[in-house]
């Protein structure tokens, strides 16, 4: 696709205009949709115009305080980004207007094209594709949700946060996964820089967006949901190039045979054998995931953990039972739980409470650190693991749920705990992950997780999730280290 738009640097510049617009036009917003698009743009502090010809709709649009024009051509300013929600027979006319108006890019929310597998849909898709290609128009979609820029408040869901910058880029064929990543991710500490849902990808395709985010200084980690690719070789080349510069997480849908059947009707891309896909992703040096949860966890570990390639864990749990299962979880994820150095054991023996606890590794430390609320001893444990030459990374169970009620009654305890962990993380050179299991008082546990991630500590809802996310980051940094 890229060559349609001249040199790669030109496409980069043009995409940058679309992703950072100053003027946005929504074409065809409707009351029946709750004026979704204009409501999405309420957080945008640039200029927003509407294009709508239906008098019944225009009154509602003007009531929102938005200036409406009967045609895109009549909009007075240069237009950087257009969202188009017209019925599909009107789409070619709007594409022609976009070309005439020299807009930065247009996202076609309009659907009913090749994904319907009907003659009409396929023909119409061919028509708009040809129009856009001939004119060099940046067409996003069709059948997509387009761009989200958190900092500028350009959104495709009214629930998306806006106004502050983010550092994670996300691209997706599916609109649902694109929106969910930004929403569920936001709840769990992922701040999106820019995302794009690109649907049928008839003009711009995944490699173009990946390349754009690779060059975007605001974006530090790139994640994506893909179901297949039209040009596997190009996709691979771009992924490999990009993964050498920043972490890339690829969530693949349609891996199973039945799943890949669904892919075909969904976005009409070719499926490839799972074993080959897996090998290609490894070769590209990207992190692979299989669900939204895994993707968010991997992104968080890559964003918040110090980069590390060592697999030897120092583990801290609150009780004997948890010490056993935290160890199983990290070993099963392919990480190691070694004995500590004799120097560490010497230090530990001087203060560790061995009544109801033990410190070989894992450290069954609930008694010693007052379930996390004796910050002095907790800090000592963390320092010992930090200095231990047998330990590459540290994982800790935070706030056993059965003491959560105490935290609700005495929030100052939690403040202290968060402070101790945050100051450890800032001093430490080793990856650190916290695990706070959902419990019978999930609101308190959710609060603990939110407060930890707000202080830049990667936190997970289960030992397995934490172990796998950490494993993925270690694999990523190893692949980067092993490049020749």
């Amino acid at each position: 696709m890229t060559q349609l738009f001249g040199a790669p640097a030109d496409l980069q510049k043009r995409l940058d205009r679309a992703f950072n617009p100053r003027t946005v036009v929504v074409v065809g917003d409707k009351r029946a949709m709750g004026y979704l698009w204009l409501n999405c743009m309420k957080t945008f502090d640039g200029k927003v115009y509407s294009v709508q010809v239906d008098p019944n709709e225009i009154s509602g649009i003007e009531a929102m305080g938005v200036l409406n024009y009967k045609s895109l051509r009549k909009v007075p300013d240069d237009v950087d980004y257009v969202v188009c929600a017209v019925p599909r027979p009107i789409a070619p006319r709007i594409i022609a207007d976009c070309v005439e108006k020299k807009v930065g890019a247009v996202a076609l929310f309009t659907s009913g094209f090749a994904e319907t597998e009907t003659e009409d849909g396929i023909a119409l898709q061919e028509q708009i594709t040809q129009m856009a290609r001939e004119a060099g128009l940046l067409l996003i979609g069709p059948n997509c949700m387009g761009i989200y820029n958190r900092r500028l408040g350009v959104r495709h869901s009214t629930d998306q946060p806006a106004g502050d910058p983010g550092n994670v880029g996300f691209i997706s064929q599916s609109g649902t996964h694109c929106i969910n990543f930004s929403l569920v991710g936001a709840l769990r500490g992922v701040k999106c820089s820019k995302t794009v849902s690109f649907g049928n990808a008839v003009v711009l395709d995944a490699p173009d967006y990946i390349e754009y985010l690779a060059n975007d200084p605001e974006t530090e980690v790139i994640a994506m949901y893909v179901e297949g690719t039209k040009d596997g070789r190009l996709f691979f080349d771009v992924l490999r190039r990009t993964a050498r510069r920043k972490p890339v997480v690829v969530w693949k849908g349609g891996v199973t045979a039945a799943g890949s059947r669904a892919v075909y009707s969904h976005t009409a891309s070719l499926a490839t054998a799972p074993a080959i896909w897996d090998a290609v992703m490894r070769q590209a040096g990207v992190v692979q995931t299989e669900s939204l949860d895994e993707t968010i966890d991997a992104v968080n570990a890559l964003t918040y953990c110090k980069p590390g390639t060592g697999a030897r864990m120092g583990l801290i749990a609150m009780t004997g039972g948890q010490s056993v299962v935290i160890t199983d979880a990290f070993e099963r994820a392919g990480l190691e739980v070694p004995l500590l150095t004799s120097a560490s054991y010497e230090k530990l023996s001087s203060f560790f409470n061995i009544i109801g606890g033990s410190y070989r590794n894992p450290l069954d430390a609930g008694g010693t650190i007052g379930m996390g609320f004796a910050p002095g001893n907790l800090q000592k444990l963390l320092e010992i693991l930090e200095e231990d030459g047998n330990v590459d990374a540290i994982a800790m169970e935070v706030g056993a749920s059965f003491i959560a009620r105490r935290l609700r009654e005495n929030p100052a305890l939690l403040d202290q705990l968060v402070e101790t962990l945050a100051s450890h993380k800032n001093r430490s050179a080793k990856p650190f992950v916290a695990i706070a299991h959902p419990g019978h008082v999930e609101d308190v546990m959710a609060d603990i997780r939110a407060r930890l991630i707000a202080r830049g500590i990667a936190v997970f809802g289960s030992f397995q999730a934490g172990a796998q996310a950490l494993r993925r980051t270690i694999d990523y940094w190893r692949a980067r280290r092993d490049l020749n």
Partner: protein
Amino acid sequence: MSVAEVIENARSEGRTLLTEVESKQVLHEAGIAVALAFLAHDANEAAKAADKAGFPAVLKVVSPDVAHKSDVGGVRLGLDSKDDVERAFDDIVAAVKAAQPDARIEGVAVQKMAPAGTEVIVGMSKDSQFGSVMMFGLGGVFVEVLKDVAFRIVPLEPKDAREMVREIKGFAVLEGVRGQKPADLAALENLILQVSEFIEAHPEVEELDLNPVLAYPDGAIAVDARIVVS
């Protein structure tokens, strides 16, 4: 003959499958370690070829119609003298004619028998999305039953070959089990990278099978080879 000439010759005969002799010849030209084979049309030529290749010799029927050579009596192993080779030639021709009377027999391939080693497979096929995909695995049941193979797309970097060899579940076999010495992993990686380069240089190669490659504590060599061109 150069690679291009060998392929041209096969095409002129309406073939896309290169014979074992041809396949090995082009791989040898590319610097890849193969047990070279020579085509003999009669018993006398076979004996001369064995003298050139070295003893003990192996003879295999060359026929575009025979898929599994040993099933039709088309293979003789461990031949220590010219006499043995001459006799084996006649035996093979007779056996194949008996088993598959309509098979065209172009001759017999003569090569030196390689000493026993750990059997591995290096292959390439085309994927509609990613183009040339290389495969590596241990020979026999590991590939056929357990599907214990690693894939990478061409061109490979040294890192890819390194990972490929270590990624298979049966890697411990290459590290040496039951008192066996470890296989020469560097030689295997090198062979994989050479094949990758060969494929990159010859996009007309549609399929390639080195099966088996024998891995030794010092080196590795492909003892059978099969190439399909477009």
